């Protein structure tokens, strides 16, 4: 098959491992990570790339994305089937199973997740801003203490910073998901250092490339993948399958 793979940057190194082993011709396009910051406004960014590939005669467009806070809800292609792995977000993908993720999530409240891509590609302080400037529903929690003090004064600036960072203080652990990428030990060390800096417990768990491998190998079983026929779109159900095609 000829496949187009539109992949979130956070999965770059994992995809690099898997692509050479796919029996299919895969054209890969990597989109900057952090689009989920835009919430549902993420959708046009991914949709635009789907639209650009739709007329190229691919047998399928496979997406290295998940529901992503509903950012991928509504995705569609007019001529090509879309294939999406069933997960709430990349953490579920990297754990190799949305069920494994759910179980881990329920048993480990207050955990911050990291993976090779989160360590390597997340740009500190990067804020993806919506093109249309409706700030009503943005919180602005990425602003630094200095920026807030400059705008609101010492007392109010500090108060706002405390408010914006309070959820981080509620976290108690950092879990690094290892996926076997090159030089992973260095990434594990960075993750561990971040945990220490925050005063969080650190755990390393072994991830799995199985779902991503099956995606690139064309092994699209309905339990692990949603196939969106041409003309249909993704709709979140939030049930066991996460989403459906309508």
């Amino acid at each position, binding site marked *: 098959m000829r496949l187009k793979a539109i992949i979130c940057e956070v999965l770059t190194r994992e995809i690099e491992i898997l692509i050479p082993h796919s029996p299919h011709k895969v054209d890969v396009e990597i989109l900057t990570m952090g689009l989920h910051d835009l919430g549902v406004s993420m959708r046009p960014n991914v949709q635009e790339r789907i639209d650009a590939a739709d007329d190229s005669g691919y047998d399928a467009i496979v997406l290295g994305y998940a529901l992503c806070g509903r950012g991928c809800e509504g995705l569609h292609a007019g001529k090509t089937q879309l294939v999406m792995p069933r997960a*709430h*977000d990349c953490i579920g993908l990297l754990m190799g199973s949305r069920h494994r993720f759910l179980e881990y999530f329920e048993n480990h*409240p207050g955990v911050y997740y990291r993976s090779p891509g989160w360590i390597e590609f997340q740009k500190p302080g990067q804020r993806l801003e919506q093109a249309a400037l409706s*700030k009503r529903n*943005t919180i602005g*929690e990425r602003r630094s203490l200095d920026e*807030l003090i400059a*705008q609101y004064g010492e007392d109010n600036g500090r*108060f706002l910073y405390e408010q914006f960072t309070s*959820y981080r203080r509620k976290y108690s652990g950092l879990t690094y998901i290892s996926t076997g990428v090159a030089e992973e030990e260095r990434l594990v060390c960075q993750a561990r250092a971040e945990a220490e800096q925050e005063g969080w417990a650190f755990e390393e768990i072994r991830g799995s490339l199985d779902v991503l491998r099956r995606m690139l190998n064309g092994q699209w079983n309905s339990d692990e993948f949603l196939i969106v026929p041409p003309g249909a779109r993704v709709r979140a159900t939030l049930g066991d399958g996460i989403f459906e095609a309508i």
Partner: protein
Amino acid sequence: MSLIKDLYDAILVGDVKKAHSATQSGIDAGLGPMDLIQQSMVPAMDEVGRLFEAEEYFVPELLLAGRAMKSAMELLRPLMIASGQKLGTRIVIGTVKGDLHDIGKNIVASMLEGSGFEVIDLGADVAPEKFVSAVKESDPRVVCMSALLTVTMPAMRTTIRALESAGLRHRVKVLIGGAPVTSQYAAEIGADGYSENASGAVKLVKEVCSAA
């Protein structure tokens, strides 16, 4: 009266010290808590909501106004309790189980308090059982639930089911919100309403309370 205006202005600009001192001055001058709440606080928070809708105020301004209002309430609440005054229609609010995000929930709680409601804030990561206990113990009119993750949204459905099983569902209105939440989801799980943002949430709470 200028003390009324002083408190109104202080809340509007998020000046916590002035809000506190204007409230104290008002109390010292013989103004009752309800005078200050109805004539300063509620209009100030209404104006904050209007400015937010007009995109002149954003989340930081809401938080600062809420903080100023709360500092006023710290002085007024003991006086109201001591004189047996009702604190306003009771609302229970919390972020659902597994979810630690609370900024939006905090803003809604503070705007509701500033609008004259009595708010019981259960915090974040609130299990269904804890919502049920809070309804049993406090007999609120409304339960507000927040979720910021699609993975924790199903806890909203579970909490509604828990209220049903406890025979309490009919006693409260359940309203939901949070970035990934939608009005369709609210309808699907049997919630009574949904709001996209904090000022909408306050309007919705007022509507459901007055439609009793």
